[in-house]
C-alpha cells in the first residue's frame, strides 16, 4: 500500500533506521561516553564486546574524541585494526530524544590487523585470557580490511546524507502543510464572507461577524473596524465601529478607530507599526505592534481595519498583514455594494415619489394623498404583525396605488358635481390602467395587487374583479382601507372632509361589508397622530406651491 508517510518525529525514525541498517550489516553500534568508555548498544559477539568495553580502547578513544565532533561519519582507527564510523549523535535512539551532546555513537568494525597486533596480546594479558584460544574464538568471518572499512564508512555516510535529506524534506513538508492549513482557514473565511455578502443580511451583522471570524482565524489579539464618517452614501453606516477580541486597553482601542481614519487617510497599503508608544501608549503595554489596513474602492477611503499584537506576544508579520488585506478587500467591496444599493434604492424611491406627485398634481384636492395612504398602509401592516419587508412593499404599493389616474381625463377627476355613469366607469378604469403601467417594471411586480385591487370590497361589490373576502390580495385589503380613510378625512371636490370620529365610525360600520373585519379592528386602534402631522405638512406644502 502506498500510504503517505506523515510521521514527523524530529528525525528519530531515520536515525534509528541507520542504526538498524548498521546492525543488519553485522556491525555493532557503540555508545561512547565523554571519558572514552564505550558500550555496545546493538547485539554483538562475546569477543567484540570484550574489545569494545576494554580499558585500552577507552584510553585510545579519550585522546581522539574531538575527531567525532568535527567529522561526522569519519573513519577512526583508535587502535590498529579497530575501526569506528561516527554516526550522527542526536538521531540514534528514538526513546532518548535529547542525549547529552558529549555522547557519541559509532559503528564498530574489527580488522585482521587487530587480531595479529600487539593490542590483542595486551588485552589478553590484562584479562588473563589465553591469546591463542582468543584468536581462535574471534569471528574471522566478520573481520574486514582497512579498504573495506573505508568503503563502509562512505556507504554509511551516503545513507546518512539521504536520511538527513529526507528529514529536511519532511520538515519542509511539515511547515508547508502548516502554511497550507493556514491558507485553508483564510480561503474558507474569504469564501464564507463572499457568500454572506450576497445575502440580504443587515450590514451591521455582516461587519460584526466578519470581524469576529477574522479575529478567530488570524493570530491577532484583537481586531477593530472603523467606517469613515464623511461619506454620505454610506448612510447610517457612517462612523460605525466594530471590535472583536479583547484589547488590553479596550477604551483606547475604541478611540483609536476615528484617529486612524484621520491620521492615516493617505495610507494605500497595509502597514505594520512596530513602535506604538506614541500612537497608543496604553495599548503598547499589551501589543508589540499594530496593523492598519485601509479599506478603499476606486481610491476612496471607506474605512480602516486595524488590530493589535499577536496572541503569542510576538511582532506582527507580513503574513498577518496579508490575511487582513485580503479580508479588507471583501469588506471594501461590501461597503461599495452597500453604497450602490443605497444609490439604487434612493433613485427608485425618488422616481416613485416623483411619479406619485405627478398623479397628485392632476387633482389639487388629492395633494399628498398617495404618500398618506402609503404611510398609513405601512402603519397598518406593522400593527397587523406583518414582517418589516412586507410592510415596506405595502408602503411602495400604497405610493403608486393611484398611478392609473394618469389615464383618467382631468375633467372627470376634478369634476365638482355628480359623475355620470360613463364618467364613473372611466374612473373605475384606474386600477387596471395603473397595474398596466407598472407591470413591466420587474422591481415593482409584487406591488401590482395593491394597485389593481384597492377598490375591491369584502362583500364582493367592489371593482375591478368583484373579489370577495380573503380572495382579495392582502395588499389590496390594506391599501383599500387606508385609501378610504384618507378619502373621507380630506376635502374633495364634491364634499368637505368628515370629522375624524365620523370617519372611524364609518369604518366601524363597514367592517365586514366594505373592509376586512380583522384589519379594520387593527386599523381602529392605530395612533393617528403621525397621520395628522402629515396632513398639516401637506397643507403647508400645498399652500406654498399655489402661492
Amino acid at each position, binding site marked *: 500500500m502506498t500510504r503517505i508517510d*506523515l510521521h514527523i518525529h524530529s528525525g528519530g*525514525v531515520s536515525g534509528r533506521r541507520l542504526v538498524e541498517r548498521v546492525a543488519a550489516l553485522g556491525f555493532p553500534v557503540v555508545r561512547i561516553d565523554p571519558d572514552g568508555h564505550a558500550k555496545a548498544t546493538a547485539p554483538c559477539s562475546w569477543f567484540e564486546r570484550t574489545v569494545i568495553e576494554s580499558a585500552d580502547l577507552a584510553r585510545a578513544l579519550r585522546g581522539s574524541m574531538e575527531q567525532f565532533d568535527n567529522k561526522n561519519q569519519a573513519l577512526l582507527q583508535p587502535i590498529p585494526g579497530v575501526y569506528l564510523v561516527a554516526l550522527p549523535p542526536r538521531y540514534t535512539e528514538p526513546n532518548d530524544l535529547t542525549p547529552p551532546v558529549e555522547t557519541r555513537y559509532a559503528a564498530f568494525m574489527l580488522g585482521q590487523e587487530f587480531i595479529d597486533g600487539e593490542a590483542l596480546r595486551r588485552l589478553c594479558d590484562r584479562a588473563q585470557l589465553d591469546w591463542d584460544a582468543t584468536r581462535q574464538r574471534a569471528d574471522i568471518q566478520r573481520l574486514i580490511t582497512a579498504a573495506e572499512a573505508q568503503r563502509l564508512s562512505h556507504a554509511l555516510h551516503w545513507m546518512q546524507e539521504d536520511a538527513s535529506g529526507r528529514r529536511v524534506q519532511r520538515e519542509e513538508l511539515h511547515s508547508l*502543510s502548516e502554511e497550507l492549513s493556514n491558507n485553508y482557514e483564510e480561503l474558507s473565511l474569504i469564501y464564507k464572507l463572499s457568500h454572506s455578502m450576497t445575502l440580504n443580511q443587515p450590514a451591521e451583522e455582516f461587519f460584526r461577524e466578519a470581524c469576529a471570524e477574522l479575529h478567530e482565524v488570524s493570530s491577532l489579539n484583537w481586531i477593530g473596524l472603523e467606517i469613515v464618517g464623511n461619506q454620505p452614501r454610506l448612510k447610517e453606516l457612517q462612523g460605525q465601529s466594530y471590535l472583536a477580541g479583547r484589547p488590553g486597553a479596550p477604551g483606547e482601542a475604541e478611540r483609536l478607530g476615528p484617529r486612524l481614519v484621520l491620521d492615516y487617510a493617505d495610507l494605500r497599503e497595509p502597514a505594520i507599526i512596530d513602535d506604538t508608544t506614541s500612537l497608543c501608549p496604553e495599548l503598547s503595554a499589551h501589543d508589540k505592534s499594530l496593523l492598519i489596513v485601509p479599506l478603499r474602492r476606486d481610491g476612496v477611503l471607506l474605512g480602516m481595519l486595524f488590530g493589535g499584537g499577536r496572541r503569542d506576544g510576538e511582532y506582527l508579520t507580513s503574513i498577518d498583514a496579508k490575511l487582513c488585506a485580503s479580508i479588507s478587500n471583501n469588506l471594501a467591496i461590501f461597503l461599495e455594494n452597500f453604497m450602490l444599493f443605497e444609490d439604487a434604492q434612493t433613485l427608485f424611491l425618488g422616481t416613485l415619489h416623483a411619479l406619485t406627485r405627478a398623479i397628485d398634481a392632476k387633482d389639487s384636492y388629492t395633494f399628498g394623498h398617495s404618500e398618506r395612504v402609503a404611510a398609513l398602509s405601512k402603519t397598518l401592516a406593522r400593527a397587523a404583525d406583518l414582517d418589516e419587508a412586507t410592510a415596506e412593499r405595502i408602503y411602495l404599493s400604497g405610493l403608486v396605488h393611484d398611478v392609473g389616474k394618469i389615464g383618467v381625463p382631468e375633467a372627470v377627476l376634478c369634476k365638482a358635481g355628480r359623475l355620470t355613469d360613463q364618467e364613473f366607469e372611466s374612473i373605475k378604469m384606474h386600477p387596471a390602467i395603473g397595474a398596466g403601467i407598472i407591470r413591466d417594471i420587474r422591481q415593482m411586480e409584487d406591488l401590482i395587487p395593491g394597485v389593481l385591487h384597492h377598490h375591491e370590497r369584502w362583500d364582493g361589490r367592489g371593482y375591478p374583479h368583484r373579489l370577495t373576502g380573503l380572495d382579495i390580495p392582502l395588499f389590496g385589503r390594506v391599501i383599500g382601507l387606508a385609501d378610504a380613510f384618507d378619502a373621507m378625512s380630506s376635502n374633495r371636490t364634491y364634499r368637505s372632509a368628515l370629522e375624524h370620529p365620523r370617519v372611524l365610525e364609518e369604518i366601524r360600520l363597514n367592517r365586514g361589508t366594505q373592509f376586512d373585519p380583522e384589519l379594520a379592528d387593527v386599523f381602529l386602534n392605530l395612533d393617528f397622530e403621525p397621520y395628522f402631522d402629515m396632513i398639516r405638512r401637506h397643507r403647508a406644502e400645498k399652500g406654498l406651491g399655489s402661492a
Partner: protein
Amino acid sequence: MLCTDLRGSAMNDKTRILICDDETHILHVVGLNLRSAGYEPVLAANGEQALEAVAQSPPALCVIDHQMPGMTGSELCRRLRAFPGLEATPIVMLTAADFRMPRPGDGDEQLSAVVGKPFSPKALIELIQSLLAPSRIGEDQ
C-alpha cells in the same frame, strides 16, 4: 514495514481517523491538524487504499471526499458500512460547494455530516471532536 513497527505502543492508543481524498494537499493538511489534535490519522489517496487500511484496523471516524476518480465517496461509504464494526462509525463527507449531495442521515451512506470545500481545518477538527464526544458513544449503546 520498519516505520510502522517503530511507532511504539503509545501511538496505538490514539484514536484512529481515516481520511480519504485524492488531493494530497488535503490529506496533509487534515493529517497535520488531526495529529496536532492528538489523533492518529490514517491516510488513503483512494477508495481501495481506504478499504485496505480499514481491514487492518478499524478507525473511530472516517473523513471521505465525495468526488474521487474511480471509487466515489458514496460508493466507499456503502462499502465501509458493510465492514463488521463500521456500521455506525461516524462518516464526514467532504464535497465541493453546492455539489448535489446526500444529506446527513439520508441514504445508504448514513453520513454524520457533510462539509463543503473550501473548509476550515479548525472547524473540521471541532466537528470531529464533537462527533467523537463521549455522550455520543452513550447514544450508540
